[in-house]
C-alpha cells in the first residue's frame, strides 16, 4: 500500500510537469499582443501594446519563456495575477479558503445524501419513492446552476430578506481585520475559526452566508450522484448472488445495504471522487451569484483575460487535486472490494 501511494505521489510530479508544458504550449498559440492585452484596462492604454510586449519578453521563443517561468517557480514565485492585482500565491491563499469552506459542507452532504437517495430509489425502483427521486434528479440536473442560484437568491434574499450574499457581514470582516491579536485565523475558514476563537456569532454569520451557496451546489450535484447510484443499485440487486441470498431467506436489510450497496458503490466512488476534485476548482456560477470570490471565479476571469500565471498555477493545482482524488478513489476501491489489490 505504502509503495503504491509513494509511486502515485511521484507520478504527480510527472503529471504537473506534463500539464505545465501542455498548457504553456497552448497559451503560446495566442499572439504576444493578445497575451499582453491583459494589462490593458482602457483604449488609452492600448496604444502601448508593442512596448508592453517588448518589456514583458513576450516575443521571446517558447523555451525561453517557459524556462523563465520555471526559474521563477524554483524561487517559489508563481508570478503576478493581473486579475487579482497581486502575486498569484497571495491571491491563491486568499481565494482557496472561500472555495474550500463551500466544499467542506457541500461535498460530504452531496455524497451522503446522493448515495442514500440513490440507494432508496434503486431498492424501491418503479415505486412512488423512485418516481419522486427521479423527478427530483431530472429537475435539478437539467436546471442550470446559475438559474437555481438566482431563484434561491430571489426567494430568500429578495423576498424574505434573509441570507445576504457575500462571505461575511461587513462588521465582522472589519473586526477580523482589526483584531489579529484577539481573533486568530487558524484555518482561514470563517465557520471553523469562529468556533476555535470562541466567536460563535462570527461562525454563525459565516454559516448564514454559506447556506444558499451550499444548497445550490448540493442540489445540482446530488442529482448526478443519485442517478448513478440508482442505476448501479438496480443492476446490483438483479444479480444472481442477490437472488440467491433472497432465496435463502437472508434479511432484506442485510441484502440491500450490506451486499448490494457496497458493490454498487464502486462506480459512484469514481464519480464522487471526480466531482469532489472538480468542486475544488470552484463553482463559477455559485461564486458569482452569491458574491463569494473563490478559485472558480478567479480561474474563469483569468482564462477570459489570459492571465497566464494564474492559468498555469491553477492547472498545476488541478493536476495535483485530480491525482490525489484518483489515489483516494483507488484506496476506497480496495476498501469496498477486497478483491482489488493496490499492488
Amino acid at each position, binding site marked *: 500500500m505504502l509503495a503504491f501511494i509513494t509511486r502515485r505521489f511521484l507520478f504527480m510530479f510527472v503529471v504537473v510537469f506534463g500539464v505545465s508544458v501542455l498548457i504553456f504550449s497552448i497559451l503560446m498559440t495566442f*499572439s504576444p*499582443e*493578445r497575451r499582453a*492585452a*491583459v*494589462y*490593458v*484596462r*482602457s*483604449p*488609452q*492604454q*492600448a*496604444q*502601448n*501594446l508593442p*512596448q*508592453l510586449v517588448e*518589456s*514583458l519578453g513576450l516575443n521571446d521563443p517558447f523555451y525561453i519563456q517557459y524556462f523563465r517561468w520555471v526559474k521563477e517557480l524554483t524561487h517559489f514565485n508563481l508570478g*503576478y495575477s*493581473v*486579475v*487579482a*492585482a*497581486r502575486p498569484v500565491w497571495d*491571491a491563491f491563499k*486568499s481565494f482557496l479558503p472561500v472555495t474550500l469552506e463551500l466544499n467542506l459542507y457541500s461535498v460530504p452532504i452531496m455524497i451522503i445524501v446522493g448515495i442514500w437517495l440513490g440507494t432508496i430509489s434503486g431498492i424501491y425502483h418503479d415505486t412512488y419513492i423512485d418516481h*419522486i427521486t427521479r423527478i427530483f434528479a431530472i429537475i435539478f440536473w437539467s436546471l442550470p446552476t446559475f438559474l437555481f442560484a*438566482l431563484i434561491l*437568491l*430571489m426567494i*430568500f*434574499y*429578495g423576498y*424574505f*430578506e*434573509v*441570507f*445576504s*450574499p*457575500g*462571505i461575511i457581514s*461587513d462588521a465582522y*470582516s*472589519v473586526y477580523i*481585520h482589526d483584531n489579529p491579536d484577539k481573533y486568530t485565523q487558524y484555518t482561514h475558514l470563517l465557520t471553523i475559526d469562529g468556533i476555535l476563537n470562541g466567536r460563535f456569532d462570527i461562525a*454563525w454569520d459565516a*454559516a*448564514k452566508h454559506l*447556506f444558499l451557496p451550499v444548497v445550490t451546489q448540493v442540489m445540482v450535484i446530488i442529482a448526478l450522484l443519485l442517478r448513478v447510484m440508482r442505476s448501479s443499485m438496480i443492476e446490483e440487486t438483479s444479480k444472481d448472488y442477490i437472488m440467491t441470498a433472497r432465496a435463502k431467506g437472508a434479511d432484506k436489510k442485510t441484502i440491500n445495504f450490506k451486499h448490494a450497496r457496497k458493490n454498487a458503490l464502486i462506480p459512484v466512488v469514481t464519480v464522487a471522487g471526480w466531482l469532489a476534485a472538480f468542486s475544488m476548482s470552484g463553482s463559477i456560477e455559485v461564486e*458569482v*451569484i452569491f*458574491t463569494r*470570490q473563490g478559485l472558480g*471565479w*478567479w480561474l474563469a*476571469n483569468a482564462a*477570459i483575460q*489570459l492571465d497566464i500565471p494564474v492559468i498555469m498555477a491553477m492547472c498545476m493545482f488541478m493536476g495535483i487535486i485530480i491525482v490525489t482524488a484518483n489515489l483516494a478513489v483507488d484506496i476506497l476501491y480496495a476498501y469496498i472490494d477486497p478483491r482489488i489489490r493496490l499492488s
Partner: protein
Amino acid sequence: MKKCILVLFLSIAMILGAGSAMATPDDTFVVANYGTVGTLDPAVCYDNEGYDRLWSLYETLIFFKGGETEQFVPLLATEVPTMKNGGISADGKTYTFTIRKGVKFHNGEEMTPEDVVYSIKRSMVVDQDGGPSWMLLEALTGEGGTRGDDGIIPGIFEKIDKSVEAKGDKVIFHLPNPYPPLMGILVNPLSSVVSKKWATANGCWDGDMANAAKFNNPEPGKEPLQGVENGTGPYKKKLWETSKQFIFERFDGYWGGKAKIQTAIVKYVPEWSTRKLMLKNKDADRVHVDQQYVPEVQAMKGVKIYEVPTLSITAALFCQKLETSGNPNIGSGKLDGEGIPPDFFADINVRKAFLHAFDRNTYKKDVFNDLAIMPSSPNIEGLPYHKDAKVYEYDLKKSAEYMKKAFGGQVWEKGFKMIITHNTGNDQRQAAAYMLAENIMSVNPKFQIDVRNVEWKDYWVVLRQYVYPIFIIGWFADYADPHNFMYTFMHSKGVYGRYMGVSNAEVDKLAVEGIQKANPDDRRKIYHRLQDLWYELALGVPVAQPIGIHAFQENVQGYVPNAMMTTHSHFVNFSK
C-alpha cells in the same frame, strides 16, 4: 421521511436566516459595483475604478467645482491660479500655486511644497507602458513619453527636473508651450500628492534625477505603491481585498474637517440581480446600473436616480487604408461583388452613404431608452467649444445616391461584401452595427454586410492591424478638453485617427494648433472648424454619448454628479 427533510430544511433556513439583511448604518456607505482596481499607485493608475479609490485617498492641488468639469476649486493649493490673479503668466507658460499649510498625510507627516514637486516629477519619471504619465509629460516637457524607439529619450529627465520647482510656499510649473488643459490634468489622480519621505522609504524613486532611469517603466503590478497608500485625502485605506471589497476609513486628521461617513465600503458584485437586491434590501447605498436595467431601478421605491451625461463617445469609424493580406473582413479584397478594396472607405461617397444609413433617432430611443445624447462630432456636449455641428440625417435615398456615385458607379453596379465588427457583449455597439448593415443592405440587394463580434482584448489587438473596415469603439475623457477627443479621432497620428488611415493636412495642422494656443477665442475658432471638418470629411458615425445612471438610496444626501467622475462616490460630502 420527505416531510421530515422539508421541515428540517425550512427550520435550518429560518434559524440561519433570521436577521440576515439590514440597512447599512448611518455612518457607513456601501457601494456595489463590478469594476476592479489594479493599483493604488497614482503614477500608474489609469482607469475610472482606480480613480474612484484614489480621489478619496489622495488629493490634488485643485479639484472640480461641484458638477463642473472646467471650473475648479483649490484643494491642496490655497487658490486656483488664473491670469487675472497672476497665477498664470500672460504667455500661458507659467503656473504658480500657493500650497496649503497644516495638511497632514495619513501617517501624520506634514505636507510640504517639496512633496508636491516630488509627486509631480515622480508621476512623470515612472511613465509605465500604457500608463497615464503622458498627460503631464506632454504638458510640462512637450514630449508624449520618456522613451522613444531607442530607449530613454536623451535629456528627458532634465526636462522633467526643470518643469516644476518649489519656492517658499509656492510651487511653480514651467511649460514649454501654453497647454490649456493643464488644469484638468492637475485634477487627475496622476497629479496626487504623495509624501516624498514615505514614498522613498517604500522603494520609490529617491528624487535624484541621476537615478530616475532605474525607476522608469516598472513592470505592471510591481510598482512600489501598488497596494499601499499615504495620501492627504479624507479617507484612509482600511482593507483592500482585491476582487472582493475595498474599505475606506475616515481620516480624522483631515485638514478639511471630519467627514460624516466614517466607513465606506466598495463591494465587488458582478451579478446585476445581486446588486439590485442589495439596493432593494438597503444593503447597498449605491449600486452601479447598466443602461438596460434602468427601467427595473426606476420601478423601485426609495431609490433616487441621477442621470449624468458622461464625457465619452461611441463612434463607428471608417478605415480608409485596409490591410488586404489575411483580412477576413473584406472578402475578396476587390470591388468585384465579393468583397471591398482596401481603399473602399477612402471614397467619401461611400462614407456619406453609410452616414445617411444610420437612424440616430430610432437608435437613441430603442437602444438607449433615450438615455443618450446623439453627438454631432467627437467634440461632445460638456466639452469646451462644443457646437451642434451639421449631421447626416437618416435618409436612405441619399444613401443610395452616394453609393451610385462611389467608385464611378462600380459599387452600385457590382455590389460588395464586408463585415462590421464590434466587441463581444456590448449590446449597444452590436445594435449600431446591425442598424448600419441592414439599412445599407436595404438600399441595394447586391450589398452584403455581415456583423461579427470579437472579444474586447482581441478587438484592440486586431484593430492595430488595419483589418476592420468599420470599427465601433468608445473613448472616455482623460480631461475635459477637445484636444483629448479631436486629436484622438482626427489627427493622422491620433489613437484612432491612425487606424482610420485619415490624412488631411488641414486637420493635422489645426489639431496641433488647438493645444498650442492659450487664447480661448483662437481655440474656439480652431475647434469649431474641426467640428465642421468632421462633417465635411465624413470621417465616421458619432453613435452616442451615453448618459450615466447612478442609483442611490433616497436618504443619501450630498451627491453632486460630475461627468468626469462616472464611478466616483465622493464620500466626503455624503450624509444619511
